[in-house]
């Protein structure tokens, strides 16, 4: 065992050496932006119209990546749903101890606020730090709270998956609108860019972010919900 671990340690050292060799020559902190980044810094306003450059990159310049990541979440949620699909009725009573009064009450109070906050984050994603993913995650946390606090809380699979599908589908449609109405897939400029820095600006970015937010929120919720429901099945 010791021999094995020391050999493994040697292996790890060797691997570390490879990683460190990435820094071997001429590595120093960057002094200025690279070409691409510089292009973004200089032209994002004209091309995309979103002050938050990260959002500009995420939603438009690298929109395909974002589509991909949405797909991954979607896929994960679907697979998890598939894996955890219980053969028994979901209506089995929850064996857990009921949450305390305080927890339930607090949850009732907090959930709408959290959802509101999440929505704020994705609606303002093109202006300030934040965006669809972050907002979606926050929204999902509200449902996690709900599910955790209330033993009997049942979230409708139908609604979740409907939200998921509608938002995903719309994302794709918007992407296609980019081809039809503007210069390419996921081009946000098929809607007017609007006044720089205002809520309704930056073309399709806010819309996309809304869909992303909804989608991420519903997907994460669905994952948690599935996990929670699967607890009811025999262990």
């Amino acid at each position, binding site marked *: 065992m010791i021999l094995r671990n020391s050999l493994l340690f040697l292996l790890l050292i060797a691997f570390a050496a*490879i990683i460190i060799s*990435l820094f071997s020559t001429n590595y120093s902190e960057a002094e200025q932006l690279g070409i691409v980044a510089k292009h973004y810094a200089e032209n994002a306003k004209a091309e995309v119209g979103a002050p938050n450059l990260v959002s500009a990159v995420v939603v438009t310049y690298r929109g395909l*990546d974002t589509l991909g990541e949405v797909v991954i979440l*979607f*896929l994960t949620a679907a697979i998890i749903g598939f894996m955890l699909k219980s053969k028994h009725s979901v209506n089995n009573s929850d064996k857990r101890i009921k949450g305390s009064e305080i927890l339930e009450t607090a949850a009732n109070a907090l959930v709408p606020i959290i959802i509101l906050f999440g929505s704020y984050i994705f609606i303002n994603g093109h202006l300030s730090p934040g965006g669809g993913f972050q907002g979606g995650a926050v929204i999902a946390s509200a449902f996690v709270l709900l599910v955790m606090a209330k033993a009997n809380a049942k979230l409708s699979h139908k609604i979740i998956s409907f939200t998921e*599908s509608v938002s995903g589908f719309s994302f794709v449609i918007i992407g296609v609108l980019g081809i039809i109405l503007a*210069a390419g897939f996921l081009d946000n400029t098929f809607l007017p860019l609007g006044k720089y820095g205002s809520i309704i600006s930056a073309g399709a970015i806010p819309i996309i972010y809304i869909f992303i937010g909804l989608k991420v929120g519903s997907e994460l919720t669905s994952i948690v919900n599935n996990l929670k429901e699967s607890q009811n099945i025999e262990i």
Partner: protein
Amino acid sequence: MVTPIYIIVALLGVAFALGFSGQKQIKAAGTLALGALAFSLFVSLEWLIGLYTETYKSTQIFTAGVNPPFSINLFMGTGEALFTTLINFIGLFGGLYLFNKLIKKGRSTFIALLMLIMGLNVVVMTRDMFNLFVFLEISSVATAGLIILNQNKKSLAAGFKYIIATGIIAGILLIGIIFMYRFTGSLNIDDIPTGNLLMIKGFGTAIFLILTSILLELKPFPANGWGLDVYQGTHAGISVFISAASGTALLYVLYKFIPLMSPSFAFALSLVGGLTFIASNLLGLKQTHPNRLLGYSSIGQIGLVVLVIGLAPYLGDKFEYIAIALLGTHVFAKAGLFWISGIIQKDNIRKWTILRKNKLLTILFGVFMLALLGFPPFPSFFGKWELITELAGNGFISWMVIILLGSFLEAVYLFRWLGYILKLEAAKKELQPISWNKYLPIIISAILLIASGFGMSYLHEHAKFINYIPLIVAAAFILIDRLPVFIKNTLAIASVGLWYYMMYPDLEEFRLIFATIFLVGGIITLLAGYAYKGKRQGFYPMALIMFAGLGGLIEAKTTLEFFFAWELMTIGSYFLIIRGKKSISHALSYMLFSLGGAYAILAAFGLATVNNTGISLDILANLNIYAPAIFILLAIGFMTKTASLGLHIWLPGAHAEAETDVSPMVSAILLKAGLFGLIVMMIKMGDQMIFGLSISYFLGWLGVFTAIIGNLMAALQEDAKRLLAYSSIGVLGYALFGLALMSHLGWLGATSIAITHFMFKTTLFLAIGGVVWRLKTKNMYQMGGLIKKMPFSFISVLISIIVLAGIPPLTGFAGKWLFFNAIMEKGWYLQGALISFAGVIAFLYCFRLIHSVFLGQLKDEHRNVKEAPFWILLPQYIILGVLIIFSAFPNSLLKPIGEFITPYLPNGALVWDGQMAYSLYGYWNGELIMYAVVGIFVAVLLWIIFWNRKIKKVKQFDIVYAAERPFLPETTHYAYNFFAHYKKAVGILAQPMISNFWEGVSEIGHSVSDKIRRIYNGSGQAYLIHIIGFIVIIFLFTFGGF
């Protein structure tokens, strides 16, 4: 023209839309998903055709309305179109195949499938590295979702191993990408400066990490345990996607990164590919689980393509051709095999006998398997050909060896598997009815394989001249397989005859002789086929493929055509041989020796192209490099067919177990293909020297020992057909010896032996086959006294063995006489004495054969035996007639042959004076000897008849027997262990040393395989360690740590 972005749109849109559907509309949802896949296939196919016909131009697809590198762009060129077509093909048909299953499992599985295919499409098309990462992850996650289609502990464990392995690999890819971005400021592949970047420290490491993680995704040995477990653990229909679709996409990624590779990394890549190819095929040897076995094969094939990519700079403009041929074969064949495996659903290849209840699937299985192994006319044949040629051209001998060895190992387990399917005891259960959506993908794959084979050969500068008509005719016989034998036999004879007729005007010299042996001989042996009743399914296509190959050898003008025909002949004869009883192991060893030989020939032809122009067979005549090696390789290749000592162990069983009319085909005719090859080779190359010694000198000795051992073994057999089989080994030993003499008389002798061997071995095998036909046993001691029941067979055997033994006045003596004169001339006295010693040993088995079968005591159970069927006797008597003519008028045979040989070996030709032949040393008049012998014989016989005109016939047991009357023919017939004393005296020569040697080789191979495969100990953690270790080792290798 549809922008390829719509592939993404369609797949994604449908996937998202599937969320709307409930379990009730699942069928519609599934159909919609397939529709999306079909649409993708349509788009990519449209692009492929458009680009190929040059109506479309390669296009960049921008997203976000901004030019790259500021946004992500996709690229659609010929390569992308081809690869996405392959992927979408697998996607659509894989989905169709799994349709019922997926429907049962719910919409999530359709989502995973769509996303997998979408991910792979983007992976192929994208020019952005991070995008590549994202979509690789999509396909990984989707795969992880599909793996657990059947949720059980196997698929769960496999899926988990898969997900942690790909997770780590993706992480490492990500590190590479981010540093790449840090160093270049761009994520676009096209922006990365080319050149020897790996040499720049830091930056080099980043590139290294990217390349290595892509490589790791391709499951290189030994960091591939996770992949293998997945193949074993998941449903075969899912393995199709992993093996065919994912592998294809990742190979294309590797291809895209070629400009980034430094020579050292390319070398490491080829090394890893080669190692993977050879190791996974080696490990396959011990594997019995069909899906895991296919997994080994799959990993091996991908390793081969990786090797090709690593060697890309050396392969020049042939690179794409080779890679596509190999990969295309892999995709279709592996998909087909996995699909079939999904239908069979047996966890041990020995249980696959159930497959043969379904003829169509069995044929398809054979097609896929042959395609994988690079048999013609499949694309991999041309791919392998080009690969070997190019490697030889670059002097990469060791690569050639690796590729051929790996292919050989693959053939071992695939043919073993095929043998099990065809011959192992059948399962009782019937195959479940198979729905059309499972058939269709398999059939289409097979059709595409064949079509792409023709396509590849059309694209090849030399292969387009290959004559496919005989092959097509043979294939057409599959369609009429349900007709009765009588019709098929007539058609077969007609087609072979027609071909010979059409070929005849172009034939000259040796090609005339061998074409006659092959095709006219074929017709004669086919005549015996009329004796069969019923349909005899599967026989005619295979026999005609063999004849197509044999005829192709004659027609071949280029090395490619020759090799093509050679392989065709091998495969046809393999299927003929495996039709016999108990032929499972013999057919396998036949195939393995043949393949080993074929690879030697391939290597030789490859080497022959070095410093030579063109691939005409004539290049063998003006080699300026490697000549001795080529000579040896070709000789080995051809000698596997002539079954020379050391390479002969396949023959006895294969010939003995074959059917009555197949034995003469494979023994009397097929073996001559080896001789033809040797003759062609020696005509072109003459003799070659190695270390100052003539190679033909060794061949001569080899021929001598082959003759002695073959004849000796024949004398010690109990099985009549096995005896004849060993006799073939011996006789071809003479022929080899004669050729090795490299003199006019030697060749004359060898050629005449080739011809007479065809004749007497055909009659012997048919006559004995006729006996076996009636008696249902091959053991000679169970026969006896049959002269009274089967007189015509007896006469045929009698004349044949007189010819075989070389006793005057029949024509066999010509061979002996020529040899003696030839060795006198050449000075090979010892060899000559030993060859004639072998000839005398032949008397032993000749007598044993005729005595034990036809003379001695008739057994009670054979008292009602009838003469062999007319159609089996007819060919024998046709040949006997010709034999007698040749005996009485030897110059009718020998004079023309001598004239054929004279241009090549003019010295020492015979001088003919009528039927009188003069050599340097002696003389011989076949005609007068015939008259004298017949005269004396008739005189004596008449006298005997006259004197004994009142002779009385007595009963079987009316013999002098120490005052007792024997009553059991079994105890009175002296036949079992007939030469016991001889065995005691010289049995040491008859030890199965060579079989033991080859068995030892096989045993070592299997043991090594078993030892090495223990590294896959099943723990996902160990696989992670392999991955990390792999990275470290490749790093050290690439950066000169070693």
